[in-house]
């Protein structure tokens, strides 16, 4: 745990032009994501940063960027520590994000995302096979 330091710049410097700063932990992580139809996709479980590697020297001409939103097993290290192999990461590209509000809005359909395979697996293998599973409740 490092001690909080005083900000190096005036507070306004950290904010976007609307005067509202974006805090990754407060405004992005653990927020609900919804697709273009308003269907819940997942919670933002973690973020992947591009352009910075542990132990490598920093290239200041290319600052790190948020490249992907991680979902699924990516939540485990945040709860229990340790790490999950990269092959197990379910990613949603940051390019698909259209708006940050009280939910994170995506421009795609939930069903078109690779990251939502678990939902599709349970739907196709179990729920859709039970009579009435594909019908709206009456």
């Amino acid at each position, binding site marked *: 745990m490092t001690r909080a330091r005083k900000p190096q710049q005036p507070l306004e410097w950290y904010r976007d032009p609307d005067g509202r700063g974006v805090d990754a932990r407060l405004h992005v992580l653990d927020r609900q994501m919804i697709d273009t139809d308003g269907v819940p996709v997942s919670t933002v479980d973690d973020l992947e940063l591009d352009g910075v590697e542990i132990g490598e020297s920093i290239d200041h001409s290319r600052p790190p960027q948020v490249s992907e939103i991680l979902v699924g097993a990516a939540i485990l290290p945040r709860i229990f520590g340790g790490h999950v192999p990269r092959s197990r990461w379910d990613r949603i590209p940051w390019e698909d994000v259209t708006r940050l509000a009280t939910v994170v809005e995506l421009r795609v359909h939930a069903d078109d995302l690779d990251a939502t395979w678990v939902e599709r697996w349970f739907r196709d293998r179990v*729920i859709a096979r039970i009579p*009435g599973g594909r019908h709206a409740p009456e």
Partner: protein
Amino acid sequence: MKKIFAVALGILTAIGGFVDIGDLVTNAVVGSKFGLGLAWVVVIGVAGICLYADMAGRVAAVSGRATFEIIRERLGPRTGLANLAASFLINLLTLTAEIGGVALALQLAAGVGPGMWIPVALFAVWVVIWRTKFSIMENVAGLLGLTLLVFVVALFLLKPDWGHLITPAVQPWLPASESPVSYWYFAVALFGAAMTPYEVFFFSSGAVEEKWTKSDLATERANVFIGFPLGGILSLAIAACAALVLLPKGIEVSTLSEVVLPVAQAGGQLALAFAIVGILAATFGAALETTLSSGYTLAQFFGWSWGKFRRPAQAARFHISMIICLVIGGGILATGVDPIQVTELSVVFSAVALPLTYFPILVVANDPEYMGDEVNGRIRNGFGMVFLLIIVIAAVAAIPLLLASGMGSA
């Protein structure tokens, strides 16, 4: 006119849906032991659930976010998961108790059981969740639950000496025959029964299910601030009936037959039939609500698609988790545990979990990003803090009191 009808329907279902197996059993037990000596707890508990259900409903109506999405977002994944585990397990315990209550009510009606009724109850709950629209489910269970008003009727038919009945309610400090440890144990249990966390999960998720917006806030307030207190009067009537019939004879409440005994004595078979229908509707309605709540909490924590307004195939993991919860609840009952004891445990552990549910709601109800200009005012926050304090005290005291009083038998 349509609006008035909707509001009236909402209030009626809120009354009928307020009482569940926890309220039925705990109020009858308390009435048979202390008379109305713990009526003040019901009053505080109802005030608390009104305050926080209104907050959760307002957050859901204004921001469209249900309670557990907020809990995860505000507490982070680690504390959020601990909270989920506690809330989910207690909800599962309550679900088990409600299914047991349905089986016991069917046993009262049919004279056989309750073991054979458990699979029937489980299947019925699942079919309703699988195929019935949210509003129909809510209204039918709530309106049939109104037959519990027979407890109020029975109270008048018993022609009590009102002064004698009310005295312990207005002077609760007068020594009761039971030990003080047991008195405070039942105070916490009654508080847990009135403020059960699933009611908040269900109320806020229900607001999302019914697509409430800011314009529905008047309906929401009417449901909460008129419906819930009237439901609380039902709770008090159950306790008062037990105080009149069971307390003088020293009858202990160990099954549902003792709960309905005063009604049968006051109004005969017809009144008994009403009471059984009421208990069946109340426990069945609460079984639906707790089952849905288990799905809601999991789906909202992990961000799955959820809701009865979707086809089951469009909320696959939500429906799978509810089916699994029903199977687990049935499995617990199949071991032959007494549903009444499960109920008594569930209300005490509900009291333990209360702060986990209510604290994040208070925080978000103050967040302008979610609430816009509908944030809590000073009065709401003042009451919110006072009740949070009471909730924390009850939660901390619950387990020591449970052990010290030997589940109230000491």
